[in-house]
């Protein structure tokens, strides 16, 4: 695997929209060609090289290409957007839409990400070593196709509206989350190792939410069913199983109604 290193040299006056920072865009290209890739500030088009020092060498295909991005990227959006293969390492905080509509490959962020990371994600893996903002693994505004496959792991906390319209895949948050988790979800698995606040699983049709810590307030559309002993992301324990959202439509399998499942760990 070949590595391209991008180091930010000039901060944008507004925000830099850089959906060309993907293995797909740089694979098979020479340094001059990578430098010439388009990025946007507001309505103006610029060259990637106007803001980044480009070094290293791209692989022949996306799968053989790794991009390392250095410097303060807290004003850079769309890193790894729609990428299908290869690897991106961000050694900083990043702005919105990291790995949005990603289809494959791997993104590691050694910092925090802002909102909409992994929006509409269809595959691959995102690892965030810091905190994630709102709408992690959610759907784009108005869309009903949130995260569909792949895995997002957050070491720290995540914001509100996690996994809105999630249809598949897995999100693991090491810390706490804000309000609205798995709203409208029709599949997928959300694991929250810290505490949650309220409105978990609102209008949830199918899927699983696991909470290891506290839940401030349970949705009235969820009912307690039973206690179960299960293993979740390497942690064995006893969980209280709730099902819902009772106000939503649910399909039947072998005569049994399928609900969204919300598991809360029972601690002694």
């Amino acid at each position, binding site marked *: 695997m070949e590595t391209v290193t991008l180091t930010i040299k000039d901060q944008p006056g507004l925000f830099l929209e850089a959906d060309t920072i993907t293995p797909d865009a740089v694979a098979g290209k020479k340094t001059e060609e990578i430098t010439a890739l388009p990025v946007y500030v507001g*309505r103006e088009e610029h060259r990637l090289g106007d803001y980044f020092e480009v070094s290293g060498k791209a692989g022949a295909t996306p799968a053989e290409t790794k991009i390392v991005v250095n410097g303060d990227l807290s004003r850079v959006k769309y890193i790894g957007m729609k990428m299908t293969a290869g690897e991106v390492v961000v050694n900083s905080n990043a702005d919105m839409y990291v790995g949005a509509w990603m289809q494959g490959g791997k993104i590691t962020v050694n910092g925090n990400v802002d909102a909409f990371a992994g929006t509409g994600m269809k595959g691959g893996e995102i690892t965030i070593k810091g905190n994630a903002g709102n709408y992690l693994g959610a759907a*784009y*505004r*108005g*869309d*009903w196709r949130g995260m569909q496959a792949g895995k997002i792991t957050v070491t720290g906390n995540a914001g509100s509206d996690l996994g809105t319209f999630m249809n598949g895949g897995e999100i693991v948050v090491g810390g706490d989350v804000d309000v609205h988790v798995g709203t409208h979800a029709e599949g997928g698995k959300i694991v929250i190792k810290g505490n949650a606040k309220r409105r978990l699983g609102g209008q949830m049709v199918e899927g699983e939410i696991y909470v290891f810590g506290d839940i401030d307030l349970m949705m009235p559309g969820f009912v307690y069913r039973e206690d179960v002993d299960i293993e979740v992301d390497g942690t064995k324990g006893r969980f209280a199983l709730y099902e819902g959202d009772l106000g939503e*439509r649910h399909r039947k399998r072998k005569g049994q109604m399928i609900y969204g499942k919300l598991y809360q760990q029972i601690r002694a």
Partner: protein
Amino acid sequence: MAEYLIKNGFVFDPVLGIKGDKADIAIKDGKIVETTAVKNPKIIDATGKTVMAGGVDIHAHVAGPKVNIGRNFRPEDKLFGYKAGKGIERMQGGFSVPTTIRTGYNYARMGYTTVMEAAMPPLYARHTHEEMQATPILDQGAYPVFGNNWFVLEYLKNHEIENAAAYIAWLLRATKGYAVKVVNPGGTEAWAWGLNCDNVHDPVPYFDITPAQIIKGLIEANEYLGLPHSMHMHANNLGNPGNYTTTLDSFKLSEGIKPNSKFGRDQVMHHTHVQFHSYGGDSWANVESKAKDIMGYVNSHDNITIDMGQVTLDETTTMTADGPFEHHLTELNHLKWANADVELETGSGVVPYIYSPNIKVCGIQWAIGLELALLAKDSMRVFMTTDHPNAGPFIRYPRIMKWLMSTEAREQQFDAFKYKDKVIDATNLAGIDRELDLFEIAQMTRAGPAKSLGLAHMYGGLAPGLEGDVAIFDFNPNEPYAPDDIEKAFGGAEHLFKTGVQIISDHEIVSNGNKRTLWVNAKVNDNPQVMRDVKEKFLRYYTVTLNNYEVSGHHYVPNPYVIEVDATQ
């Protein structure tokens, strides 16, 4: 104005009866003229290319409140499709519910120059006109909806045709409307009561009138006035298995009524998006094509014209004044739903929809639309539409041409279906080997709709005296071509003229044109009763006053083209 001479093209024109012969077309002062009438024309070399009149779309939802609801509640529809402004071209966005700017440009790129907005809620006519004036290039008109209007229901309940006609004339003037549109007659009003009208004899709650009375009454009122277009109909029971009987019942209501119009049309009913109305079976499990029954009727009754409503197998946005149908649809696909009630007049709903080639029913719908056009004995009465954006976006017209003109293209699509065999079993299309030619396409997309609209004196052909609306496509019908060449050539006109102004030159948009709004000013005898009823209803029920209702003045219709009708007797 500049003079143009389009030389040596292969011309397809039903009005002149030219079927691909080489001919020269001259344009002067905005009109088509004899080639001898131009003195110093700019020459457009059309050697080896196809020349046709500008396209006429008889039915599309391109302006007004429900289109805008679609734009507002589907940000995902315009997520990746933006195009920045460049030169004369302004910024464009959106796919199934494009911006007004993209609407104008994309129609022009397909060689279309006239597009009718198919459903204008009268209360929101001002909005509709504002959007139309923001749509460049195209001549447009809008059809106000009448089929669930309280005035109409009350007059027609007692068969008061003269009063209904006076009200229609007043509303066309108040809204600057073009024709009488009917959507799910009575059913949308019933929806305000949580009900629907499933067939032509299903009475409307409270008003105690049947859809059959509404349909027949509106046809009679339309002919009493002698409007350019006939009554324009979206029947009850749209989109339901087994609905073809309702469609035939609706057709039959036109029997025995003769057209009364000085505008050259032969029909008294135009039935739109007939694909959605041609289903057999009694559930989605056994739904099947009844296009043969439907076309059997249409072919043998020349006082009806129809359009296809062709499913294009895209992700799109459905929108209709058929409020109960949109609720039915959101219950089926569980996607977001917008619903509106328009006071005394109509209602509407909007739901996104994905016509997937992996779903059997979508394949059947696709086949039925094509069957309608391929079973037509007279392509002057069966028009190409997608009921944009309901069955698909209008930008797919060139793809529909490909399917109509090539069995190979249809076979390719059959092969792409997940349930190919089931689709073939439920439809007739696989057994139809007819391939339309460009003359028939010109009938379906130009001369036919222009005649049906009562606009054959302006559009749809290349005869001297008609508007200078001419499209030149980079397509040589005498050379071998692959099906995809049709789609490519007719999706991007090489040159386009609108009212004598060159809009597209070498595939580039070079002018935003001089768009006009067509409306019908029907003069009737004074009718104090109807005017008193109008005043009373506005005082008692409407949320706005008459002064805030009428579309008037330069602001709403800056460049009107008024078609005068005298119905005083």
